[in-house]
């Protein structure tokens, strides 16, 4: 897909149609009591509360990629907080506050615990999903065994609650839904919301940009848990009945179905899906109780397999409502980042680093140090352990023995995001970027560590350190800031990743074959950039490379790695003339010539 033209007229239209849709929604909310009958009002009030929970599922799943069956648990916690407090303590202003406080605290505590169980280094997204399925099951069982306190399987009923008319409830529920939708909308459109999408796209890259993804996800789950809990509180207070089903996995599944059919990752899709399906269920489940569930289940499977984007976006697509407005931020040099720390301090030091997989020794006794301003070329035949060495430098959990110091601090067993905070930047062998985000968004996320992204708005200015700016300007990226990264060419993606790594303002840059698959011109450009990084800005660059001509051109020192050990270090000339290196490569000189 070509880049959308940045023509303001083109972008204004979808914004208007969104406004129109929003206006219709608000009008329905205000006029509801005069338009709908009592039965429908009842249904709609409950549907509004459920739709709030659906929005939280969408933020977690559609935007952040955490598929959860467990949001019903938080809804149930809120509902039971209302039911339990109003039944056992009574109803007064004080108890209302008590119940709301209990909802918030309990939801946050449970969400924190579930988050701790689900999100940690190396946890698969699948594992988090299974945990989210365990949560409602555990909670339901606890409620069932709660005896007369929780009302067991029949739940609690007949407690006193707000003495409001149906109309008032409709407006309250509608307002709560509108507020929840607005909160979600502001969040996902903000710069912080882009971080969520980045986590969904590529969690590994996020950690190597210094973002503690586990903490972000736990915080998000806590916020969304509280939101679902408050919706549940509203439901419990309105309906006057709470039952264990409200916490169950069945409701959790229904929430997912509403989001999937409504359109994940759109907010208004799940909102509309939640309300419409609830209303339809209320009318149809009496006339065709089993068939309706069957149709819903079948539709769900079909949508997941064939239309993963959901039904409502599919229906609205022809009207062009969906193209979000992408703003082109202004590029600016980040102040205070040019001080090159003009020292030749040791930037990275390895002592006795070893790595073995079982009995297979991949690295043994690596002693190595590199200073600021150096550009070290790391070469060696395939299987010498070059990439493994880079991994050991950037993730404390990788090596089997020895110490690694980054800018004077021992990295111990620290995860990549902590190594990044110590001053590390790592560029992977294959372009490792955020596929569904634009170039500008990718670059902004790379700066998350240095500039806390706003939860409320999009920054119109994109600040980058001078060398990252240089990469963006030297390559064609400057004109493609609004292009989605997936649509870039291979070389542009490589350049983008390099710019992202540099936006971190690292002291040590690890580059794994930065020129692989690039054209001659692109290679020259990258070479110039790397030289200026080391010589002008005093960064320490470590470069794994097969292209010896390229290495000769830019590196200040060569390290030859062979069978997991450092075979020699020195200048390029020393290396070329070394009999040892000739022996090492003698088996593969032929292959090397072909490769370069």
């Amino acid at each position, binding site marked *: 897909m070509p880049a959308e033209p940045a023509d303001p007229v083109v972008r204004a239209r979808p914004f208007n149609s969104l406004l129109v849709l929003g206006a219709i929604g608000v009008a329905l909310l205000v006029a509801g009591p005069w338009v709908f009958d009592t039965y429908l009002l009842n249904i709609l009030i409950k549907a509004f509360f459920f739709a709030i929970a659906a929005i939280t599922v969408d933020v977690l799943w559609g935007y952040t990629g955490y598929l959860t069956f467990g949001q019903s648990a938080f809804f149930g916690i809120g509902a039971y907080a209302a039911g339990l407090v109003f039944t056992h303590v009574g109803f007064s202003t004080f108890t209302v506050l008590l119940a709301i406080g209990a909802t918030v605290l309990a939801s946050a505590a449970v969400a924190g615990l579930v988050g701790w169980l689900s999100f940690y280094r190396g*946890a698969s997204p*699948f594992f988090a999903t*299974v945990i989210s399925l*365990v949560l409602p099951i555990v909670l339901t069982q606890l409620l069932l065994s709660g005896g007369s306190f929780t009302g067991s399987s029949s739940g609690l009923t007949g407690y006193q609650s707000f003495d409001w008319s149906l109309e008032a409830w409709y407006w309250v529920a509608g307002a709560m839904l509108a507020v929840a939708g607005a909160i979600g909308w502001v969040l996902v459109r903000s710069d912080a919301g882009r971080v969520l999408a980045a986590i969904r796209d590529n969690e590994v890259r996020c950690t190597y940009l210094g973002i503690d993804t586990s903490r972000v996800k736990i915080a998000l789950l806590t916020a969304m848990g509280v939101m679902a809990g408050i919706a549940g509180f509203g439901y419990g207070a309105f309906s006057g009945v709470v039952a264990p089903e409200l916490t169950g996995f069945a409701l959790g599944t229904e929430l997912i179905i509403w989001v999937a059919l409504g359109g994940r990752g759109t907010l208004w899709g799940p909102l509309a899906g939640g309300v419409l399906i609830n209303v339809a269920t209320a009318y149809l489940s009496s006339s065709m109780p089993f068939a309706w569930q*069957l149709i819903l289940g079948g539709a*769900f499977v079909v949508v997941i*397999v064939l239309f993963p984007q959901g039904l409502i976006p599919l229906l609205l697509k022809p009207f062009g409502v969906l193209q979000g407005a992408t703003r082109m931020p202004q590029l600016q040099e980040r102040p205070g980042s040019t001080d090159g720390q003009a020292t030749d301090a040791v930037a990275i030091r390895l002592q006795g680093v070893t790595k073995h997989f079982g009995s297979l020794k991949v690295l043994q006794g690596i002693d190595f140090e590199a200073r600021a301003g150096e550009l070290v070329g790391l070469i060696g035949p395939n299987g010498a352990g070059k990439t493994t060495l880079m991994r050991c430098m950037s993730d404390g959990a990788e090596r089997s023995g020895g110490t690694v110091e980054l800018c004077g601090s021992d990295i111990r067993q620290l995860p990549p995001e902590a190594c990044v905070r110590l001053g590390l930047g790592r560029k992977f062998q294959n372009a490792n970027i955020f596929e569904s985000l634009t170039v500008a968004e990718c670059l902004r996320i790379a700066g998350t560590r240095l500039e806390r992204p706003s939860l409320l708005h999009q920054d119109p200015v994109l600040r980058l350190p001078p060398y990252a700016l240089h990469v963006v300007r030297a390559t064609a990226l400057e004109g493609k800031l609004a292009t989605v990264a997936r649509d870039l060419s291979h070389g542009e993606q490589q350049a983008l990743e390099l710019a992202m790594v540099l936006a971190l303002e690292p002291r040590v840059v690890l580059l794994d074959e930065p020129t692989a698959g690039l054209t001659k011109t692109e290679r020259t450009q990258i070479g110039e950039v790397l030289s200026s990084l080391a010589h002008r800005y005093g960064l320490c660059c470590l470069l794994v490379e097969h292209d010896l001509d390229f290495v000769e051109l830019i590196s200040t020192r060569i390290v030859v790695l062979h069978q997991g050990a450092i075979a020699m270090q020195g200048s390029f000339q020393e290396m070329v003339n070394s009999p040892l290196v000739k022996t090492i490569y003698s088996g593969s000189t032929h292959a090397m010539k072909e490769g370069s």
Partner: protein
Amino acid sequence: MVLLLDLLTTAAMLFVVTAGLMMVFGVMKIVNFAHGALLTLGGYASYVVTRLQMDPWLAWPLAIVVGIAVGMLVEGLIVRPLYKRPLDAILATWGLGIVIGQLIVMGFGREVQFVSAPLSGTWQVAGVDYSAYRLVLVPVAIVLCLALTGLLNGTRFGVRTRAVIMNEDLASSLGIHSGRVRFITFSLGAGLGTLAGAMITPLSSVDPNMGLPWLVSAFMLVMVSGHSMASLLLTCVVFGAAQVLVSTYASPVLGGLTIAVLAAVTLRIRPKGFARG
């Protein structure tokens, strides 16, 4: 003594239920959330046998046939298009579980049903009378474990399967039809799932949601145990023991939650589970 037998037979039940999922998820890395519905389907297969007043042993082969047939259908229609989208595969198979559940409700009703066991009465073991059918499950589980281990490690099919898991592109370029390997494994796993459903129903009852509690436990056990059948058997013994002990000395409700909670904590502390620790 009764406690020990409870423990062994519970472990055997867990293994029987989990083995099919192990084939599909543990070995092939295909997420199949319809496994619970397959268990239910197997339960209803044995219910049909009971209703038709046939020999209860017939429930087992019938369940396998139904399971393999359903598995073949599901693999082609739902699982295959979603190989590259694992989270969506969870949802689609889960949705399929809902559809199967609703079809069962429409066909058999919501109520809880009972089936007759192929073996009734008790056997005496070390001076204790114990349900014969439960005891039979222990050798069944061991035989199943040996047979599946043999299949995966000792046959040409097993070698191909492992080749596909390790490096699908390479396997394909060596002439292994990876799609077919997946198809066969999935169908086999589905068949094992329904067989398990038929095996466990005489011990409990049949209802349209009977598979769900097993589903979560089964996934947890497979994740904890890694990828070999033998370690799965060991995991089933350990976690089954924990479940029995908690049910006996604390409360059955807590016992029902033991496996899920314990496995979650185990995986949090040792992310790689038992096998590769």
